[in-house]
């Protein structure tokens, strides 16, 4: 098969973005990254624990893809975070056991980790545990120490992958919802979206919570996605005590359990629970009393002490796409040539994403009989927005001199300057959440009550739109319903019509 292969990746989450980055290396593909939301990474990728797992959790006989791709993905992330300047702490993880039963599970995990090829795993005693993590519960009798695990910023990761993809020629289509897949004579011929028809030869289904619906559009699949909700609590940056490692309980068949960790931005975070939702509730990210209570109690068991409850600055929830078969779904179909699944990416989906991308590349090579050629000008690197808060005083003076907007502080809690917000807009943010995830504005103690409007004012100015129409997260979420006299104008208009 000759010529350019036109690929549409559905879903700009961490899986879709990883695939787009890998495909962007080669001359053989014209890549379209399709996202229904107004920004990238806003589905499953936005609200999870942000852990790059070591790879000992997944039973290789039951879940071969999860087991293989997690361990591989961990290795690739070690390179990618450097290339793409993604915030990460390679802090390692600890699974705590509290009795002989728990210690038996540690042995199983160790054995499984070795089978999965995870390096440097070790079961440690109370003394070493205390040394590695002084905040860990003194009731813990032993722990599995996995030094290769890390804590990543998942939304920074997606933004980085997408920016790098775009720099290498990938076309991003935001607010673009797939309505249908056109198949001619058993081959993919295009995508119908709410915006237009896109001619493509290949569709990669990385649609997360909606992957089963996409498969149905292609007339394939035979699986379904169950949304599983996980809630989290985030503490203020100055909340003590903190943890320096990722702390897990021993896992259950349902989940890896409630974790205590510190985000890459330095906030202590606890969660998630695991609540199966009915299939129709794929947008239910509500926090519940029972959920938060359960998380608090579970997390309390892992550490000597949690910070006081009034140091919690936010709670949130995310959904994991639980595939009916349990394992990731990475496959193609004989009946629809060019339709490839990268779905069912429940945990450890974030960790596995780069390895999934490699596997998808291999699938494309086989399917289209390719020996893809590296792009001569492929740029491996991407730098993130220079953060004022992370600069030394001397660097700040220099930054302010070069760009006066660095001197205008918009979010005082997180020390975010106007110049960073303008740069985030230049890189594609069009919404308040888009700014928030790229810069941390509105993520501090006051959760945006002092700076959301300032961010909105900058967005309105840069995008040249009325202030009221600036949105939190895309169409339908405008910060206002109109200008302050909108209701009277509406009323007067109606009365005028009646008279006329």
């Amino acid at each position, binding site marked *: 098969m000759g010529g350019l292969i036109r690929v549409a990746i559905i879903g700009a989450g961490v899986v879709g973005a990883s695939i787009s980055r890998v495909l962007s290396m080669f001359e053989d593909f014209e890549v379209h990254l399709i996202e229904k939301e107004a920004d990238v990474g806003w589905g499953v990728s936005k609200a999870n624990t942000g852990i790059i797992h070591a790879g000992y959790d997944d039973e290789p006989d039951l879940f071969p893809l999860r087991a293989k791709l997690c361990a591989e993905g961990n290795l690739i992330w070690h390179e990618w975070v450097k290339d793409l300047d993604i915030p990460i702490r390679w802090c390692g993880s600890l699974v705590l056991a509290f009795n002989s039963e728990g210690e038996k599970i540690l042995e199983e995990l160790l054995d499984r980790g070795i089978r999965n090829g995870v390096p440097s795993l070790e079961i440690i005693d109370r003394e070493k545990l205390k040394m590695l993590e002084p905040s860990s519960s003194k009731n813990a009798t032993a722990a599995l120490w996995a030094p290769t695990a890390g804590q990543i910023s998942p939304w920074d990761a997606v933004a980085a992958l997408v920016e790098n993809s775009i720099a290498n020629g990938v076309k991003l289509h935001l607010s673009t919802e797939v309505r249908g897949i056109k198949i001619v004579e058993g081959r993919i011929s295009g995508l119908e979206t709410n915006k237009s028809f896109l001619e493509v030869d290949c569709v990669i289904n990385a649609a997360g919570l909606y992957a089963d619906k996409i498969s149905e559009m292609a007339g394939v699949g035979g699986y379904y996605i169950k949304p599983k909700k996980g809630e989290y609590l985030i503490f203020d940056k100055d909340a003590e005590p903190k943890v320096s490692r990722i702390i897990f309980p021993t896992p259950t068949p349902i989940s890896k359990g409630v974790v205590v960790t510190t985000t890459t931005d330095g906030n202590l975070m606890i969660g998630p629970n695991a609540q199966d939702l009915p299939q129709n509730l794929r*947008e*239910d*990210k*509500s*926090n*519940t*009393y029972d959920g*938060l209570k359960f998380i608090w109690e579970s997390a309390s068991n892992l550490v000597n002490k949690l910070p006081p409850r*009034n140091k*919690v*600055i*936010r*709670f*949130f*929830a995310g959904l994991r796409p639980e595939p009916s078969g349990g394992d990731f779904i990475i496959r193609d179909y004989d009946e629809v040539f060019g339709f490839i699944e990268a779905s069912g990416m429940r945990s450890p989906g974030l960790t596995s994403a780069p390895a999934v991308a490699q596997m998808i590349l291999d699938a494309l090579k086989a399917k289209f009989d390719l020996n893809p050629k590296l792009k001569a000008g492929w740029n491996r690197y991407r730098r993130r927005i220079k953060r004022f808060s992370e600069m030394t*005083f001397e660097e*700040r*003076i220099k930054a*302010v*001199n070069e760009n*006066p*907007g*660095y*001197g*205008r*502080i918009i979010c*005082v809690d997180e*020390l975010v*300057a106007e110049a960073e917000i303008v740069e985030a807009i230049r890189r594609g943010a069009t919404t308040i959440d888009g700014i928030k995830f790229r810069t941390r504005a509105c993520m501090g*103690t*006051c*959760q*945006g*009550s*002092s700076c*959301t*409007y300032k961010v909105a*004012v900058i967005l309105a100015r840069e995008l040249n739109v009325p*202030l*009221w129409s600036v*949105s*939190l*997260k895309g169409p*339908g*979420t*405008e*910060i*206002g*319903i*109109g*200008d*302050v*006299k*909108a*209701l*009277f104008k509406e*009323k007067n208009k109606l009365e005028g019509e009646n008279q006329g």
Partner: protein
Amino acid sequence: MMGENYDLAIIGGGPSGLASAIRAWKMGVESIVLLEESNFLGGVLPQCIHPGFGLHYFREDLTGPEFAAKLLDQLKSTGVNVLSGSYAEHLEIKSSGEKEISGYMYGRAFKVKCKAVIYAAGCRERSRFEVNILGDRPVGVYTAGEAQTLMDMYGVLPGSEIVVVGSGDVGLIMARRFALEGADVKAVVEVMPYPGGLTRNIVQCLEDFHIPLYLSCMVTEIKGSGRVEGVKIVRVDEKLNPINGSENYLKCNAVILAVGLKPRVELLAKAGALIDEATGGPVVNDWLETTIPGVFAAGNVLVINDLVDYAAEQGERAAESAAKLIHEGLPAFKFKRVVLGRNVRLIVPHLISCIQDVTFYGRVGKPEENVQFRFEEIGRAFKLPIARPSEMFRFKISADDLLRLRDEKIMVNVVKV
């Protein structure tokens, strides 16, 4: 990089900062810099377009912008150097006692050296997460001040069907504000069995506009994922626990939170000032000096005030202290402690020298009728027909009375009579 020397630096250009700048100038402090974070002066006053300001301080009923204009008018005749749009990040105390404030403004970093600092950075609003309102996180959830900024500084209407959480004055005023723009204000929801705001505001903001007030009720959950669709409300018992089966749903497209204010003390705390858990502000003596010598606090960063008049009054007090420090130095004292007694939730100042008149500001813990505020150790008492947590008490005690204090402390008790 810009470095400048001043006698006095004032951080915050709201009512207390402005009042302190004007007063300090009148007291003969000739080298003053006023650092203000936003691009305009007045703090929240310019967006408070309703009347009710200034009855004590200017002895007339003013709107917020009018109150601000009066202060700005006075400021004009001073030589105070105003740096608008400047964010003060650090306060450093040199071993010489000299203070250095560093920060940033558009196009430059700055350092200001001075002998005294008045910190008047105001407060911030509590978020829904601090009062545990569950549910999803859609657009349309605003703090009262945020909604006020959007409406009256930027001309944006945040919603047409409104539920206000919290019946403090801020909540009541915003309920009326929305009603005035033609919005349907569904309810003001208050968790306590009594309203949090002044009676005159209950009448003028709610009753006059037929806005229902739900007492002993709590908003527990916000519905909607894109935009707010409604809120879940439950009744609570005397212990503020939700009553089973009392759940109700109110449809709305915006939720306005007036659920409390917190002093913005981060800069002071970082510099080492002791913070009082009860007020959330710094511990101060009767010069309104924090535990860092030469650093004074006034306005809502000191204690959350009901009235802008009090904030301005504290600004003046801090200015007088700073002027004294700059001109002749403050005398060294072994301060006596002010101790919270029965039904006193908070009080400032925390420490008194007993050589000068002191104005005490504070709040009770629970509402009581016919009470006496007793300063037992000096035999002074003040009668009030009603004491409510929502209404700050303010008593002035003369130096003559305080001189009678023999103990190391003075306890304030609220006693029913």
